[in-house]
């Protein structure tokens, strides 16, 4: 009877083959061909001209991931130590922003960071600019934030922080309290308990959080366009331009997309090596 039930998966297998595997095969074909479909490696050698964009993407994504980890871990830790009711509300509040479209949230972020936005208005109100101008003899009316790499990183952290918090929090909350008690009974101080018990046990959550923040950060194009003021181009912008933008060249775009896919596979491979059997953590 067992085999009969496995037939239920057939529509799904067909669907995934058609809409997941076939499109990826097409990306691979496009990446290795020219416009008249003759085989070439040219698309990959041409990527050399975009080194600046590659380095910028990786730099900003890595910084954003680290910032998310540095904020997200203590936050998850703090949340995991609260009572049940508090935790429930906190989880709700972490998920809720996803219901306001991320473009709109980013746009709102943009209006906060604008030259005449809330942050600069606040600094002006507390007399920060007068102070600076008084000391240095300069004439600053505002801090320019839009169009800087810092603004793009802030946007990434703002958008993807929940993806770091959820997996870490879910590993922390599942942690067996008796292990911590045992460690303390055996003479470990709090620092040692954290370093030798809590941190290793939450590693799967950290790795899954890092992947879930890094992958969208390195591939975003909307955040960099809004907060980067159009001058901080990232890999996502580059791909988008090859498909829907002015520089129409799906072959080059596919090659870049393929590189991105390889990066993701590498991330998954690393994750699978460290956190075996933790597919739950990947999800939430």
């Amino acid at each position, binding site marked *: *009877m*067992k085999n*009969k*039930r*496995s*037939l*239920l*998966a*057939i*529509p*799904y297998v067909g*669907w*995934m083959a058609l*809409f997941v*595997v076939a*499109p990826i095969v*097409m*990306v691979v074909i496009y990446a290795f061909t020219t416009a008249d479909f003759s085989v070439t490696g040219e698309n990959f050698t041409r990527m050399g001209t975009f080194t600046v964009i590659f380095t910028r993407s990786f730099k900003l994504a890595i910084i954003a991931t680290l910032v998310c980890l540095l904020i997200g871990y203590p936050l998850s830790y*703090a949340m*995991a*130590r*609260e*009572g049940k009711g508090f935790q*429930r509300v906190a989880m709700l509040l*972490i*998920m809720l*922003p996803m*219901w*306001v*479209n*991320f473009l*709109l*949230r980013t*746009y*709102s972020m943009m*209006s906060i960071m*604008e030259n005449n*936005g*809330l942050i600069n208005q606040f600094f002006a109100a507390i007399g920060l600019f007068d102070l600076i101008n008084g000391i240095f003899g300069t004439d600053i009316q505002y801090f320019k934030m839009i169009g800087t790499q810092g603004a793009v990183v802030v946007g990434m952290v*703002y958008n993807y*922080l*929940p993806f770091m918090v959820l997996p870490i929090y879910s590993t922390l*909350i599942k942690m067996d*309290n008796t292990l*911590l008690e045992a460690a303390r009974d055996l003479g470990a101080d709090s620092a040692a308990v954290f370093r030798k018990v809590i941190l290793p046990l939450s590693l799967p959550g950290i790795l899954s959080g890092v992947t879930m923040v890094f*992958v*969208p950060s390195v*591939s975003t*194009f909307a955040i960099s366009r809004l907060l980067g003021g159009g001058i901080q181009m990232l890999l996502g912008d580059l*791909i988008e331009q090859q498909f*829907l933008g002015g520089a129409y060249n799906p072959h080059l775009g*596919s090659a870049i997309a393929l590189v*991105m*896919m390889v990066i*993701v596979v590498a*991330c*998954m491979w690393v994750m699978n090596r460290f956190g075996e059997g933790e*597919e739950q953590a*990947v*999800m939430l």
Partner: protein
Amino acid sequence: MKKKTNLGNRLLIGIVFFFLYAPILLLIFFSFNDANSSVIWQGFSLRWYTKLFQNQLIIQSVYNTLLVSALATIIATIVGTFSAIGLYSMRRKFRNPLMTVNSIPMMNADIVTGVAMCLFFVAVLGGWNYLAVNYRFTVNLFGAVYRITFPQLSLGFGTLLIAHITFNIPYVILSVSPKLRQMDKNLVDAAQDLGCTWVQAFFKVILPEIMPGIVSGPLIPFTISVDDFVISYFTAGSATSTLAMQIYSMTKKGVTPEINAVSTILFVVVLVLLIIVNVREIRAEKAAAKRVY
């Protein structure tokens, strides 16, 4: 984890939540602004809400978003549940590679999924349209000659729906699978030994057992569907537009507070729904706790 609250923890949580919510509160605040600005406050007004309901573009895009998310979630939940059962009954040798394929849409960067699907849809539709133009059939029916032409297809709601279903199914499978693994394998055999057909065994044994997974499953894919911009952007074509795409095209020309208004409405609706669900869950848990003691 040991439960211990201290001020430092609360302060940290407060600061992060302030960071997360400041932009949202600001955009809700400025949806009630009388001026067309998200910086300068000119007094309370509901005029963006009345304007919103006259703006066909936004209403249509909200309708598209909710329709595609709801349809994709329902279809993905049904297909995903059956597939999870099928995968669970499979031998490991077949199941493991399929689970890897299953995680591709979840792990891959959105833009890669979007671009891949865009290429695929354009190629398939191109092939179809070529055939549709070059091959026409004539049918002779009761003396009258009918010419059958295939319609020309382009990127639109159909491709958008397919894309959303495709990235939703993996999440459903991931939430149903653990429930299947927890289920006692002998239950199904017992049901069949007692004379159930395997269809009856499915509806009377397997389905009730995995119901919690099926019920909690759709929330995440639906949320992701509503929030999705990148994959929709590449698969919806130019004629169909979701709310996210509408917002994106507006960010180039300047967002009007009508968008703030529609987002405020959605936000409040979801907030109320989540509060209701959670209050009910808490009540159910309390009732369950009473029964135990």
